[in-house]
């Protein structure tokens, strides 16, 4: 049903399309050029960084045993790829992050709905939420370990717990910002509480929910890597800790770079979902 906004506004902008004055053409070119400059510079920085790193290590300005270097990282990736362990580690970490992220987001939203539903509960739980929110969740790591046992479940629990309270508080506050007159409007139609939730609270809070999701992606990664530091026998966090312990900085650096790429991809994915949601909304 949704038509992109640009399409609808075409009638108003017609003069821009049919009647390119030279000045306007120059303007469009300028905008396009600026965009290209920014992108080219971004890529140049990246390349320059890796080239400088490689050269500095080759010339001996830095010690590749401590700093590693791009060519050694490439070799590490190839080796990990050959014995197949690359995909095992990435698979574990990715699975734990995605599951932790989804659980944290879904349970967080459900808790926010519960708090909105029952004002009594919201008042009772308020001080506990404040404490839980300020508590560094990583401190709970050992407890989770003892209770759940060393393994992916404990790591998922870590990712879940780290994003849960933030989501709950964020979404609940979003609910409370919904215009009371919109709720009044629905009540004049005789809406039930469930209908108010479904017809106004949730759709009006989409942007809050999406920003909670964006924060949660980052938090889920923190939870998973910390979890893997503590317990795991597989995963990128495990590779980093193990590499550090045996002084194989190639392994550590490689894992960090892979992690950066994965985290960026996941963030892009959430941004893509955001776009879809905003369009629908």
């Amino acid at each position, binding site marked *: *049903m949704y*038509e992109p906004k640009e399409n*609808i506004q075409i009638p108003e902008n017609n003069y821009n399309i049919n009647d390119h004055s030279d000045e306007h053409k120059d303007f469009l070119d300028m905008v396009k050029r600026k965009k290209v400059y920014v992108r080219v510079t971004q890529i140049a920085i990246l390349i320059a960084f890796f080239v400088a790193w490689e050269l500095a290590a080759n010339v001996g300005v830095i010690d590749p045993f401590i700093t590693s270097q791009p060519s050694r990282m490439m070799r590490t990736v190839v080796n990990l790829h050959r014995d197949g362990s690359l995909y095992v580690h990435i698979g574990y970490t990715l699975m734990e992050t995605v599951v932790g992220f989804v659980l944290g987001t879904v349970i967080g939203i459900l808790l926010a709905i519960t708090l909105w539903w029952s004002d009594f509960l919201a008042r009772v739980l308020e001080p506990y939420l404040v404490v839980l929110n300020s508590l560094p969740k990583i401190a709970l790591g050992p407890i989770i370990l003892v209770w759940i046992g060393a393994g992916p479940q404990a790591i998922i629990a870590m990712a879940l717990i780290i994003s849960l309270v933030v989501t709950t508080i964020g979404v609940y506050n979003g609910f409370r910002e919904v*215009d009371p*007159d*919109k709720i*009044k*409007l*629905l*009540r*004049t*139609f*005789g*809406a039930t509480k469930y*209908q108010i939730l479904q*017809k*106004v609270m949730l*759709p*009006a809070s*989409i942007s809050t929910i999406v920003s909670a999701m964006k924060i949660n992606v980052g938090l889920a990664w923190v939870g998973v890597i910390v979890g893997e530091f503590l317990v795991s026998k597989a995963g990128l966090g495990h590779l980093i800790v193990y590499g550090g312990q045996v002084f194989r900085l190639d392994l550590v650096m490689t894992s960090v770079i892979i992690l950066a790429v994965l985290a960026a991809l996941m963030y892009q994915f959430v941004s893509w979902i955001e776009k879809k949601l905003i369009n*629908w*909304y």
Partner: protein
Amino acid sequence: MVTEDIIVSLRNVSKKYHSLEGETEAVKDLTMEVHRGEFITIVGPSGCGKTTLLSLISGLFIPSAGEILLSGETKNDTTGHVGYMLQEDHLFKWRTILRNVLIGLEIKGALNAQSREKAKSLLHKYGLGDFKDHYPHQLSGGMRQRVALIRTLAIDPDILLLDEPFAALDYQTRLKVADDIWKIIKKESKTAIMVTHDIAEAISMSDRVVVLTKRPARIKSIHNLDFTCEERTPIKCREAPEFRVYFNRIWKELDVHV
């Protein structure tokens, strides 16, 4: 004393608000009747309890004392028997115009092919047919307010409650939209109870103007309006010779002190 003709009847209605600081009496011992098909406007000093009165009639609030009869029956809840139009249009930006108009029917569980068609034909009738698949942000303020009215008409209420429905519009738009809305209400032969603090707007649109006292609200005076103009629309009324007379009379009644 209940006659067929009386659609809303308030009998000795009082309403108190409670807070930790104490209780506030918003409406006190108010008795009033509204006839079917009438356009009645309530004016009064700001904060005098006008909106409370509408909330009572709509069933959003239960009176502390007295009773409210709609078509001779007591209503204890909001069942969608009245259409309520608020100061802003409150169209949902994630819904198309048509789906905004249908929301009342959805909530009442009355959405079917027939009621959907009726909603569509209302949009067509009042010049919004081409916009039914648009989103609210693509419409002007006046059009949005018309959509808001059609949203309340879609559930086919007997009574329309209008709470300063034009307050969010600029002055020129306001005159035009008031005219449009008035015409639609008359065409659909609905009973309307409007709250405003714009005296001119009250006079130009209504058959009767009720002036309330300061809080707690009681009726200070009721003015039956009669115009000599040939076509009784809000804009034409403003040109009628009686307009100024009513204006002065009501203005004095309101006893505005700055």
